[in-house]
């Protein structure tokens, strides 16, 4: 994809899957780290540290947020500090191409 009338660019897509009871907290952490948007959907899951309780809370929540590299690093930091040690959370990051870069930075 080459630059057109829009300002194309590359940002980080960070996907976070967590017990749904954490939804509100997760979103406010993401926001306070500088993310300007996110997409949330419902999911079920299983993982190595699975606590087996997400069922009683109504499953998992799957959050995607497109952010700059710095914001992504800040969110990772918050996850490592407040979420990974205690909760059932998985997260992964990859680079994606977007139009209208200004929306994500």
């Amino acid at each position: 994809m080459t630059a057109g009338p829009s300002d194309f660019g590359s940002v980080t897509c960070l996907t976070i899957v967590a017990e749904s009871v954490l939804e509100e907290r997760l979103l406010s952490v993401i926001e306070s780290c500088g993310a300007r948007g996110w997409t949330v959907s419902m999911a079920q899951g299983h993982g190595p540290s699975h606590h087996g309780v997400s069922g009683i809370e109504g499953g998992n929540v799957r959050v995607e947020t497109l952010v700059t590299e710095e914001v992504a690093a800040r969110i990772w930091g918050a996850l490592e500090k407040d979420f990974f040690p205690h909760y059932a959370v998985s997260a992964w990051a990859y680079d994606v191409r977007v139009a209208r870069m200004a929306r994500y930075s």
Partner: protein
Amino acid sequence: MDLQASLELALVNLTSPPVLAFVLGLVAVALRTDLRLPDAVYQATSMYLLLAIGIKGGVALREASPGDIAWPLVATLVLGVTIPVAAFALLRVLTPLGRIDRGAMAAHYGSTSLVTFTAAIVFLEASSIAFEGYVATLLTVLEIPGIVVGLLLARGLRGGGMGETLREVVFGRSVLLLVGGLAIGFLTGPVGYVRVEPFFGDLFTGVLTLFLLELGMLTGRQLSALRQAGPGLVVFAIVFPLLAGFAGVLGGTLAGMEVGGAMILGVLCASASYIAAPAAVRLALPEAKPSITLASSLGMTFPFNLIVGIPVYLLMAEAVGSW
């Protein structure tokens, strides 16, 4: 009531559709069947149950005179603070659990179980035993203090972030629906309620049946955690409900409630929460192991109360009432 009648009542309870659905859920997991209420429907169902119970409690509250309900309310509040402390202490004796896990357990057992409460109501109605309508109000009142006390026991008064956590619990969806429902029921009264009764009243047991099917499956998946639970936890999960149930029956009787009402207060005290408490504890005490609390509350105490507890609390209430 003689033994025969008690056994018959126990059977009525055991063969009620919600309890049977819970067993079906256990069976489904044992057979490895891919049955699951979709999350969206599960969440809507629990919203429905909380709102419905709140509304009914509010309507009943309006019909009760302040004089009738004052003492039962006091008794409920006292029990709501005492029971988690007792659970915390007893667990120290019976189990090797640490402070955090004991606080988590105290929050679950200090709060109360909507489903066990409803099974008790169904049971009393099937047995034509009278009880005060405002017991649904007591359920709502008992929901919260136990959780707060449990969290405080685990964290201590100076625990960091307690304020924010309490906000999450007190303004969380469970409490909002219960208290909001209570307000709706109180304000609309019997006249307004009649229009929503087919939805919030008549369907209740049926929706509960569907919900218990799912809860049975959840419990089935926790059964492996049961094996890890030490013998002390098993003893606690059986003995504590009997103690707390007796305290509730006593408190209700002293507060002047009928036999049926005192029995319900006993059930409220004896049962452990698995809608409001798990979410609150998860947020506030992430180090606590949910497998322990759920194995105990959902895997042992809940079926124990359904099968043995409910008729036993009635016998207690009759015995205490005739003193």
